[in-house]
């Protein structure tokens, strides 16, 4: 079973890119299945379901969706196996950009919208810098010059990635991505994350609602960057 993890900011076109790639994969004899992780609500199962391939939606609810995706990888692969699939496409919710939910033995795909401007690739962090493939979307909405500057910025942030220019409306880029997926080796057991998730065990995680720092315990970072430990 091959594993493809598709991450990216909300609205960047992850689902469209995934659907075009899935269609191309199916056309060339592969058997893709899709797990879509979202937080509270999604209708993407209906949208992706139109392709006639197995789709499973998982809502993380009050859990961080990226953490949820990470520790559920085994269950996802198990499910895909039962669907008789040979490629699992896992689309993440894509929220805070600080987590990069990519295991080492997967194809890590970061979808990024060129209309967000050429500084975005520098802001995105490990989601982009640890990706194997960066898919740039909405390329038809900017001039060639802007597209090239954006591309340059992506390569500055991640010099080893492959860049695929995609257009969710026409399907451009889908066959390029499918070709990269076809050349991918299967996922391994006991995979490791490529990048550590941020510190997340804080008083807020355990339900604190009060705002001021004096109510919070654990490792706290001040506005000026100073870090302290508060507690016993």
């Amino acid at each position, binding site marked *: 079973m091959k594993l493809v993890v598709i991450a990216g900011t909300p609205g960047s076109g992850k689902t469209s890119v995934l659907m075009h790639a899935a269609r191309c994969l199916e056309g060339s004899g592969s058997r893709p299945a899709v797990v879509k992780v979202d937080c509270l609500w999604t209708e993407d199962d209906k949208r992706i379901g139109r392709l006639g391939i197995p789709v499973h939606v998982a809502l993380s609810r009050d859990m961080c969706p990226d953490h949820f995706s990470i520790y559920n990888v085994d269950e996802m692969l198990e499910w895909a196996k039962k669907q008789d699939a040979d490629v699992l496409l896992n689309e993440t919710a894509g929220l805070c950009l600080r987590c990069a939910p990519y295991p080492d033995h997967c194809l890590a795909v970061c979808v990024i919208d060129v209309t967000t401007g050429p500084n975005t690739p520098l802001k995105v962090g490990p989601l982009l810098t640890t990706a194997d493939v960066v898919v740039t979307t909405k390329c038809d*909405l900017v001039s*060639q010059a802007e*597209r090239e500057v954006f591309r340059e910025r992506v390569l500055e942030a991640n010099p080893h990635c492959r860049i695929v220019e995609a257009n969710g409306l026409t399907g451009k880029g889908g066959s390029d991505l499918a070709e990269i997926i076809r050349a991918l080796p299967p996922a391994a057991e006991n995979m490791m994350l490529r990048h550590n998730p941020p510190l997340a065990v804080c008083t807020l995680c355990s339900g604190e609602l009060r705002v001021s720092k004096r109510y919070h315990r654990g490792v706290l970072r001040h506005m000026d960057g100073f870090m302290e430990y508060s507690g016993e």
Partner: protein
Amino acid sequence: MRLTILGGVDKDGCADHIETLHIDSGEIVGIVGPTGSGKSTLISDLEQFAQRDTESRRQVLIDGQPPDAEVRADPRRKPVAQLSQNMHFLADMTVSDFLAMHAKSRGREENLIAKVIDLANTLTGEPIHPEHHLTALSGGQSRALMTADIAVISDSPIVLIDEIENAGIKKQEALKLLAGEGKIVVVVTHDPVLALMTSRRVVMKKGNMVRVIQTSEEEQKVCNSLSRVDRWLINLREAIRRGETVSAAEAAL
């Protein structure tokens, strides 16, 4: 250089009537047809060097060969410059910063910036300043800058243009500038002057390349008289823009 388009299928799955189309260096070819007839799809096939892997199933060859996959994927090696329908920049930076970054991404000298801006200012009535913010430029200024950028920084042997006439710039000058010396130019257009400036035009219908029309000598004459009308119109527009009044004598063709 010779560009070859091998026909694919239209929106109904029927084969293109034009099976093979060759375009050689130095030629300007038009694409005409109503909205939704597949003009932009054809331009997009050329831009991607389609290898029967797009919706139209067309194939595009350079000098009779399919280009390497790497050439298709890397814009720095792709011999194509494209002026699309976009009328605005979205990057929040100054004109000179942006051009410097673009020159760098293309491996060109940064001293081309002044040249691009000077050239852009020959195409638009509203001068562009290096310190202007890209996002604040008018449609005409943006289009003029995109055109000059393609002519100077991208400087590719194949130039694709999607509907230059909507731009509010001097379109004939823009086309001549983009065509440069010995380039292959493919221009989508509804504009009679531009369409007749080409040597041939491909007619699109429901996604099908239905026929190719060679511009006749008579059409070239029509083009010349239309150019005079066009210049006259531009002069009137400029006079009004400068806040001048227009007399009946000036308005007579």
